[in-house]
């Protein structure tokens, strides 16, 4: 029967448009009231004067690495990093070991999360068995076990017939299909974006069209199957154009961008530094600009980090041997603020929407991503102006592979409330 009273913060709720200073009363795991000058008996008080109080942030693309890769990250450490970044919910991608392709693994993830995670964990099930791209995974049972979407992330579904069948099946269960769009034959093991920089550095490049070709194929299949579809980590101008056009035609399509793709281009990479190596790779300046335009124009629905921890030993190798991926939970808000809000591209409410209502709608989480009476008591409290420097060595996650180490930011999370409890404070 614990109560939490968050007082005097700038309460922003994208669903209702509420944007003014107010108090929030939370009892147990629900928001009871949002209003002026609230009282409560025996409530913990949190003074949010000068801070923004938003619905709890949702990161719909996170690699928690458990089961199977606990040396890189665990559900517990990943969840702590999430809380440290202001996230109250994360979606766990299925490329674990074993791959989350049936109800047993889905249930395992949920049980581990119930016991050790400090934030809500929503599993994403695989599209195909072992994410091998051939036979469909146990989509129905995974949904019943609690999966909120399906994806073979890390890999695309190369076989179009299999993707079509997966979409048809998923539609019946009202599960969104999330694709990692990359035509593997075109990208052919490229280590960075194919362009002037890769040519200069003598590295194999992965061209933008490897992503565009797959996005185009997926959108055409959505037209045929009517499935709800979501493009993971969009990185090219052309892909955004295709998605925008599909949305204009009324197709049930959504997409996300990562903070690192919004902030960095291939030319920003320190040569051969594996902390800049991920898939899709950092693209050209034109692509980066197009992503910000896409956010401003409403084509992009969510910001998701694609948090991909790798142990230091694996990232300390010649560039071409390093695994792809960077962490991002703890810098997501600051990077997004810098690129999109402090630069004047979008208003703060739109940014909050990208972290809250946007992902909640895609995943069908009706009581999250919103901050009004009756909603789950997940709250993100942040200061949009505090200046700080990111020190990756103080990260709460196990890994250290971030391109933002040492970078100065303006804006940071201050406290994270999950289910009515403060699980992290600055």
């Amino acid at each position, binding site marked *: *029967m614990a109560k939490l009273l968050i007082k005097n913060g700038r309460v922003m709720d994208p669903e209702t448009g509420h944007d003014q200073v107010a108090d929030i*009363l939370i*009892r*147990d795991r629900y928001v*009871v009231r949002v209003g002026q000058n609230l009282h409560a008996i025996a409530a913990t008080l949190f003074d949010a004067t000068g801070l923004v109080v938003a619905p709890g942030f949702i990161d719909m693309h996170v690699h928690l690495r458990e089961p199977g890769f606990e040396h890189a990250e665990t559900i517990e450490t990943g969840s702590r990093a999430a809380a440290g970044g202001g996230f109250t919910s994360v979606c766990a991608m299925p490329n674990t070991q074993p791959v989350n392709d049936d109800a047993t693994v889905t249930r395992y993830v949920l049980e581990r999360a119930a016991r050790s995670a400090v934030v809500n964990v929503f599993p994403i099930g695989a599209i195909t068995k072992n994410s091998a791209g051939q036979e469909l995974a146990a989509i129905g049972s995974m949904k019943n076990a609690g999966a909120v979407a399906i994806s073979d992330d890390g890999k695309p579904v190369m076989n179009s017939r299999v993707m079509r069948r997966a979409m048809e099946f998923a539609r019946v269960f009202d599960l969104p299909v999330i694709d990692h769009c990359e035509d593997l034959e075109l990208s052919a093991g490229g280590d960075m974006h194919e362009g002037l920089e890769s040519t200069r550095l003598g590295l194999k490049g992965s061209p933008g069209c490897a992503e565009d070709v797959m996005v185009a194929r997926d959108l055409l299949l959505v037209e045929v199957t009517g499935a709800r579809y979501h493009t993971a980590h969009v990185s090219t101008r052309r892909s955004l154009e295709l998605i925008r056009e599909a949305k204009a035609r009324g197709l049930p399509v959504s997409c996300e961008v990562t903070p690192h793709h919004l902030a960095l281009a291939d030319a920003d990479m320190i040569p051969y530094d594996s902390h800049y190596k991920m898939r899709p790779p950092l693209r050209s300046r034109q692509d980066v600009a197009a992503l910000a335009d896409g956010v401003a124009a409403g084509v992009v629905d969510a910001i998701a980090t694609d948090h991909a921890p790798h142990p230091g030993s694996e990232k300390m190798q010649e560039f071409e041997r390093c695994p792809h991926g960077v962490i991002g939970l703890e810098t997501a808000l600051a990077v997004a603020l810098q690129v999109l809000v402090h630069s004047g591209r979008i208003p703060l409410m739109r940014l909050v929407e990208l972290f809250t209502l946007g992902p909640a709608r895609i995943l069908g*989480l009706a009581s999250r991503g919103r901050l009004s009476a009756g909603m789950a008591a997940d709250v993100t409290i942040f200061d949009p102006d505090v200046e700080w420097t990111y020190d990756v060595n103080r990260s709460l996650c196990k890994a250290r592979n971030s391109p933002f180490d040492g970078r100065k930011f303006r804006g940071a999370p201050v406290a994270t409330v999950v289910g009515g409890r403060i699980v992290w404070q600055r």
Partner: protein
Amino acid sequence: MSETREKAQLMSASEIERTLVRLAHEVLERSDDLDRVAFIGIRRRGVPIAQRLAARINSLEARDIPVGILDITLYRDDLTTISNQPVLNATEISFPVAGKDIILMDDVLYTGRTVRAALDALFDHGRPARVQLLVLIDRGHRELPIEARFVGRAVQTTDREIIEVKFKEIDQVDKVLLVEKVD
């Protein structure tokens, strides 16, 4: 929901009406300062009681007693699991609670847990000077030390029995039924 069968009708529409008139007079008699009085009906069926009593007092004394609605769903102590659906909360109290002489109203007083939750919810709105309880039916079997100041009718029941109060505003008819659980 288990199967139930109607055992008896405890009150007809006219009996309900007469009881409410009597309760209105009792409230007037026992309230020192009507300016401080406010009614709060516990959703759902405490609400018609509060509204009708306020209307009756208005016609008797030409006084507008403020009426508030209290939704206690979020204050129940059995809200353990979080669903992915939001929980509706329709509390509407448009007047300040502090310093008021509140009469909390509900259709049936049984274990007392609903009233306890209502007190919790009410106190999160402010500190009233006093809270009294008014119920249409008191059916006994208390599990908490809670009593009603104003009681329409006291009825002896077993725990296999349920009292169903129906109001025109919600159920299209006014009556009180005694119903029994059937296995």
